[in-house]
Every structure is written in structure tokens, then in C-alpha cells.
């Protein structure tokens, strides 16, 4: 599967510095193994969207509390609930490497995280192409746990889609997703274009005039 090598290296702490040959060799070996074992799956559905107050948005009949989500959706007239995963075997691969070689495990973690992002982008590009025919643009994905949308909003999001049954992603009592290489999100649809990526620092368009310095995610 295609993924951004740069992104994976950033997760590993290189922050734009060139990676050494050993790390690159490890990364290429691991990404081949990862591509062979993942089972990417996604599901999405359009639901109703209604603004209740400045911080309450009713999505699919359920009220979500988040000022930032509402601001994010301010130009959106429609909304999709989205979920995607690389499947249970992605976690298995990291566990296997942990038993064998810690460096490989850390690199796999980073590669799989980058693959998850690319896979989500790929599906969203497909949706965007379809919706674009009718003049709709996709807003960046907005997930529970972003900004002031609590992670516990996962429970409500999960009730809007048959996520466990259709793509095998489940929620723990602490609202973490298993398999871990999974994403859920709301995606607004609006009639005016906007940038594709929510987090500027994650955006592949490094030449963009509006680019801001964002948080650097790293493995911890």
C-alpha cells in the first residue's frame, strides 16, 4: 500500500532530517510485510446535520458537544460519518516484531500509522471525486479526541454506523479503537472548497501559503 515515507519518518522522530541507510532498509522491509498482511476496510454514511447551539451539533439525531467541531463545519450543509481500518493483522505484525526486534516494531508502528492516513485519504479522495461531480467539496476529517470533541464521543459515533459488524472495529470501555490502526471521523460537505487536511503540519502541500506550524506527532 502507498504511504508517505516522510510521514513515517516524522513519527520516528526524524523531523525532516535525513534518515540513515539502516533505518531506510528496515522501513522498506517492514512496509512490504505490512502491505502483505493488512486488510483495509472502510465504511461511511451520510447522516443529518443540524446546529443546535454554538457548541452543540446534532449529527444523525445525536447531539455532539464541541465548539471546534461546529466551527469546523460552519460552511458544511451535509455530513458523512466515516470509519476505516487496516484490520487486526496490522496489530499482529507489530506484536510479532516486538518479540523479534524492537527497532522493527517501532518502524512498523510508524509505517502502519502512515498507511492508515494514506488509506483514509484514498477513500476520501474517492468520495470527493464522486461528490465533486455535483459541486460538493469535502472538509478535512474531524475525529473524536480532536480539540474539544471528547474521545467519549466515539460511543455516539459508533452508534451511527455498523462499525464492528461491517469493518470489525470495536471500542474499548475507555473509547480506544481495536484494531488500533483505525480511524473514525465526521466529514463535512460544503459547496465551497477548503484545504484537505485538518492539521497543517500533516499536509503534504508544504508550499502552501497558509501553512502553519502544527503539533508534531511522535511515537511515545
Amino acid at each position, binding site marked *: 500500500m502507498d504511504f508517505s515515507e516522510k510521514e513515517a519518518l516524522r513519527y520516528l522522530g526524524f523531523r525532516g532530517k535525513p534518515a540513515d541507510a539502516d533505518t531506510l532498509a528496515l522501513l522498506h522491509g517492514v512496509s512490504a510485510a505490512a502491505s502483505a498482511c493488512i486488510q483495509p476496510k472502510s465504511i461511511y454514511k451520510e447522516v443529518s446535520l443540524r446546529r443546535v447551539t454554538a457548541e452543540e451539533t446534532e449529527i444523525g439525531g445525536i447531539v455532539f458537544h464541541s465548539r471546534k467541531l461546529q466551527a469546523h463545519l460552519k460552511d458544511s450543509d451535509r455530513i458523512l460519518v466515516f470509519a476505516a481500518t487496516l484490520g487486526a493483522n496490522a496489530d499482529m505484525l507489530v506484536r510479532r516484531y516486538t518479540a523479534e526486534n524492537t527497532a522493527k516494531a*517501532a518502524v512498523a508502528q510508524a509505517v502502519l500509522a502512515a498507511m492508515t492516513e494514506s488509506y483514509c485519504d484514498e477513500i476520501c479522495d474517492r468520495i470527493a471525486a464522486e461528490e465533486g461531480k455535483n459541486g460538493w467539496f469535502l472538509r478535512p476529517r474531524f475525529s473524536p479526541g480532536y480539540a474539544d470533541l471528547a474521545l467519549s464521543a466515539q460511543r455516539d459515533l459508533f452508534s451511527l454506523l455498523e462499525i464492528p459488524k461491517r469493518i470489525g472495529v470495536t471500542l474499548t470501555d475507555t473509547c480506544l479503537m481495536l484494531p488500533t490502526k483505525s480511524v473514525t471521523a465526521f466529514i463535512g460537505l460544503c459547496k465551497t472548497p477548503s484545504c484537505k487536511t485538518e492539521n497543517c503540519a500533516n499536509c503534504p502541500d508544504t508550499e502552501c501559503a497558509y501553512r502553519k506550524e502544527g503539533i508534531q506527532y511522535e511515537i511515545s
Partner: protein
Amino acid sequence: MKFREKLGTEMLIFDGAMGTQLQARGLQAGELPEVWNITHRDIIREIHRAYVQAGCDILKTNTFGANALKFEGTPYTVSEIVQAAVENTRAAAAQTEREIFVALDLGPTGKLLKPYGELEFSKAYTLYREQILAAKENVDLILIETMGDLYEIKAAVLAAKENADLPVAVTMIFDEQEKLLTGANIETALFTLEGLGVDMIGFNCGLGPVQMLPLVQKISKIGSTPIAVNPNAGLPVCVNGVTSYNVSPAEFADALAKIAGCDGVQAVGGCCGTTPAHLAAAVRTCKGIQPKSVKEKTFTVVTSYDRTVYMGEHPILIGERINPTGKKRLKTALLEGDEGYIFSEAVAQADSGAHVLDVNVGLPEIDEPAVLERTVQGLQSITDLPLQIDTSDTGAMERALRIYNGKPLINSVNGKQESMDAVFPLAKKYGGVVVCLTLDEHGIPDSAAGRIKIAEKIIKTAESYGIAKKDLLIDTLAMTVSTGADNAEITLEALRYIRYTLGIHTVLGVSNISFGLPKRDSINAAFFTLAMENGLSAGIINPKSDAMMNAYYAFCALKGMDNNFKQYIAHVTDSAVPAKAETGTDLKTAVVKGLKAEAGEQAKQLLQRTAPLEIINTHLIPALDIVGQGFEKGTVFLPQLLMSADAAKAAFDEIKQVIVQSDADTEKKKDKIVIATVKGDVHDIGKNIVKVLLENYGFDVIDLGKDVSPEVILETAKREQVRLVGLSALMTTTVANMELTIALLRREYPACKIMVGGAVLTQDYAKRIGADFYSRDAMGSVRYAEKLFAE
């Protein structure tokens, strides 16, 4: 008539969808459909009745998600819901003269089972049992459906078989790549379920009848069990935000008829998107099809949770390394609960080409049932090779068989009545292929004829327990040649007869042949080749031995089992890469450069002339410091730091080998640290990195794993009297549990220090939840521990 008697006499028609029917009648997203059994009885009965009128024979109760996890916090108990559902179904069935069967419908729990997820296997079992106990008096069969995880299916099947005497049907949801959500392919799921003695196996949901046909054809070719198929009304299409299924009743019924015509298919029906109209059409096209009988297949197979190994295509290699007999290092690992070492043995054997791994943890000092269960479960979380459960303790055997995900090899039974009476019932209940040793109350016969006679007795007894010949592997016992010149020939003669005259697959513990002789590898490899030529189906060998692997690949190449010599060439190319150290590289350089094999080799050489402690202090620690300081300065990055850590670990393993063998406690008493990822958190990569580094620096790390409750952390810290506890948490929701853990430790065990780390933590945050130290990266925790223990 009972369902089992009816099965196979005529095509039985399952009903269609419940969920999409309820949505059409106003069920809202997020609402539990099973509550309608009580709140909307009339609607539920009306739907069931419509399917009866359509001509269906089997009604599924509206209990798909009626488990305690989903009903927690609702005003209803599972048993109320299930009983109401069964009553509704029975009421609809009673409105016709025709014979209608009621199937208790069980769906997935909605949680992932360990090791993929957080739900314990035993908890999944309990959830299903609750549903079964509520319904069993009033239903005709149990249908476990829309299942995407083989392990969860096993929990449900065991719950069904142990708590009711009803036929059990299982239908699974495969994707277009023909995989379950947790990765199993069709054959693996099929053979595992046949091992568990399921009455019907098949598919539902996910696909329409057209896409499902190739899957049915596949299972029909390899399976020996009646097949049930309930497809959707096509693939889901999302139009204007609404999911719908577009295949018309007529198209559905025509495609379903093709499925019904496949060998072994004895029941068909519908799933999502199908309506009474679809089923009425299906009754017209399928009811008249006389089901073809199921042909008994003779494959001898073992499986893991996602792959199947067939006996007979080429000799199967069973890796023998996870067995403490004669292996001090493994013995120590087992006694210390050092899973990491056991796992690395598994991975190394898998990488060497093993097809199956033997697992034996038998030591007088340990609680074998508990350790075997834990080890089997642990191994299945890191390898997808099938396992051979190797124990003489039938209690341990049962516990391992119960939690094994797949169809394992069972090692072993022998010709003693007592052994057969203990092992065969377990094999029958849980499924598996049994290794049968040709010895009995009178010992090991010293003739081929004697061993063959015992084999025949075992085969006959197995049959009386309902175990077919295909599920046996006969071991004609390799006896050391140094005690009898005929020993090899006796074994081989018996082997030949059993494999080619009786037609049963065979196995040998190959290495036994050379006990007491020098250069055992040569004898083992020659005997292995002879045995393969004389009908050995599977050899229990050391896959890390070049001689054995050379023999294996050469044999396959010579016997036309290796297409274009691909495997042979790959093997010789692989082993041509020198694993030996480059000349001129010392241990320190090897560690700094992160060269694992070289570091191990250098340590081995140094050990011949240097004391273990001196190697650690003058070579390893300085090397680690160079890398560690580079990491802190930002000139060395995480992968390089870890490559060095792994190289150092390889050197430490060599050193440990020597210390274990000398049996002398020359190691200095190490400082103990407990580390854990807190309760509710499943992201443990950071914790694992910290562990490796701390171990490199000589700390004795007690790793409690992930999702660890505050109580377990406290109890361990107190028991081991540690001075330092390290906690990791990734998300804001789980930092709350970190805070609880810290509070508990402070209250009950104030003597210990607590360091924390994880993505959402900051210095400030860590201070607020009461930690002593916040480590921003893995090296930080090493530095803190060094400082603390130096005090």
C-alpha cells in the same frame, strides 16, 4: 421431527432479514432492535409471520445482539429479551400446520477478543451461555451468524455445546478477498469448526448470492459438513446517504438456486435487505432442489487462527525448540515467566521455515496447566503458525485446547487404555489431529509388527470415540541407534506400512535417533531423509539446524515437491549469507552500529576469555552510552537507538546463556522495576521500548503488559518490593486510570517512586496526576532509574 433428522432430506429455507425490516418500520439508528421483542411484539410477530407465509422452514429469533454487553444500563435483562424473542417466533410458527424450526440467533458480541482486543475468551463464552440458557428449552437449533472472528465463534460454539443439546449451525461473513475480519480464510475456518463438531457451516451477510457462489463452491469441495447459506440482497449501495440492497426477489432467487445446487448445501435463506418477497421467490426456486449429500473428505490438516497446513503435499516441519528438556535457557525463561524469550524462539523457528511449532512447558516446578494455557495464548498473539500442544498432563491439555484458536496438533496419546480414554474425548470435543505413540502397557515393541499392532489398536479405539483416521498421526518412535543397531530400520519399516498400507499420516521425533552419539546433526539429517522417503508426513525437528533444513529442501527438490527448485534455491541463497562476525568488528562497535548477529557472535567469543560482568561493564554499557547520548543530543534517532538496543540484547542473551549454564549466581543482584501500560489502554509500543532499554542497562524489568489494573500493579510492586514503577498511557481517557493507579500506589505503597510517559502527557500534566517523574522519551526513563538506584 427433530431438526437433525430433517437435515438433508429436503432443502430447508431460512427466513430473511430482520434488521432491515425493522429499520423500514421505524427502528432508529442506535436503538437496540432486540428491545422491540418486548416493546413492539406485534411488529416482530408480523415479520416472522410474513416469512412463514413466504414458505420459510426456519425462523431466526430477533436476538442477534441480545448480549449482556449491549444491554448493560437498559431496563431489560438478556434473559427477558431472549425469552420474549423466542415466544414471538414460536407464536408466528404456530400459525401454520407446516413444520417450522426456530433457531436461536446469536451474533458477534461487538467486542474483539484477546489477543486482538480486550474481551477475554471466557467472558465471550459467558455472554453466549446466558443467551443459550434463556432459550434452549424452546428452540430447535442454535444459529451463530454474521461471525467475523474465528475465536469468537469458538466461544459461542463451546457455549452452545456445553449448555444445550441442540444442533449448532455457524454462518460467517467473509469479504471479497475471502477472509474473515480477523484474517482466517475459508478452509481454516471450516476445518476449525469441523473439529468442534458443528452441524452446519456456511456463509451469511457481506455479499449477495452472486458473489457468494464461488465461496460456496470452495467450501463444498473441501468440507464434510452440511452447508447453510444466507446472502444479502446484493452488495450494499449508498444512495443519498441511505444504504440499500438492490437485488430483486427474482434475481436473488435465481442466484440462490445456483448455490442450493452445490454439493452439501442443505439450507438457504436471506440476510440484510431480503424481504418476505425475496424469500417467497427463493422458496419457488430452491425448495424443490433435492440437497446433494455431503461427501466425507479425507484431508489431514491442522490450522492456526488464519492458516491451514495440509499433511501429504510435502513433509511438514514441526519446530521442537519450545521444550525445556535439556535446554537450561528455556527452563529459566519458563520459571521466570520470561515470555519474550519464548516468543523469540517461536519467531526464529518460523523464520527458519517451520510449518508448525511444538509447545511443551513441562517442568516439575511449575503449574503446567496455567503456564501452558498462557504460553499457547501468548504464542498465538505473535505467530500464525499452527501449534502442537505437547503435554502428558491431560488437565493442561484440556486448558490449552480450550483456548487454542484453530485446529491444533495434540501431542500425544499412546496405546495404553488409560491414555486413550483420557485424550480421545478431549480431541473429539475440541478438535485436533492427535499424535499417537506406538507404545502401550507392555512398553515399546522392538519389532515393526509390534508397533503396527499398537497403531491398529489406537486407530480402532479412536474410531469408537468418533475420531476419524484422518485426524491421527502415527508416531512409530525413533529410538536411539546407539542402543540397538536395528532401531532405525524397525521405525522405518513400521512407518512405511502405516503410511502406505494403512494410509495414515505419520510423525516422528526425529532427533531422538542420535542420543549418545557425537555430531548428532549428521545422523539426524540422514535419518530424516530416510524417514521422509519411507513415508514420514511430519518431522519434529530443530528448524534452526542447517543440516536438517538442507536435508528437507534437498529431499523436496529431488522428489518433485519443489516447483522449479524455488524453495531449494531460496534456502541455499539465504544460508549463504554469512551470519558470522566481520573480522575487525569488536563488540562495542557492533552494538553502536546496531549489528545484532555480530554483537551476539562477538559476545560469544569474548566470553571464552572474559568474565561476564567485565563484558557488560567495559564493552556493552559504554557502547549503549554512546548511542544513548547521541539520541539525547538528537544525532541518533529512535530506530538506530533500538537497533543498538537489540544488538546489546543479543549480546546479553549470550552472556545469560553462560550464567545459566554455570548455574552460579555470579550476576549482581539487579534493581527491579515494574512497568505497565495502564488499565483501559492497549497501546504498548512505548512501554515495550522502555523495557528493552531498561533491560540493556541491567535493570530487572517486570513487564505487566497492557491494560493492567491498578490493583495488579500495586500487588506486584509490593510483592517484589520494587522502588520504581513505570506507567504508560496514550490517551486522555486512559490517563485517568494512570491517575487512579498513582493514587492507589501512594496510599498503599508510598515507598516506591513512579515515573510516567505517553503521548498526551506533559511535565505539567504528570505533576498534576502525582507522578514523581515525567519521561519525555525512553532514554529519560533510563536516566531517572540510574539516578534513583545510585542514591
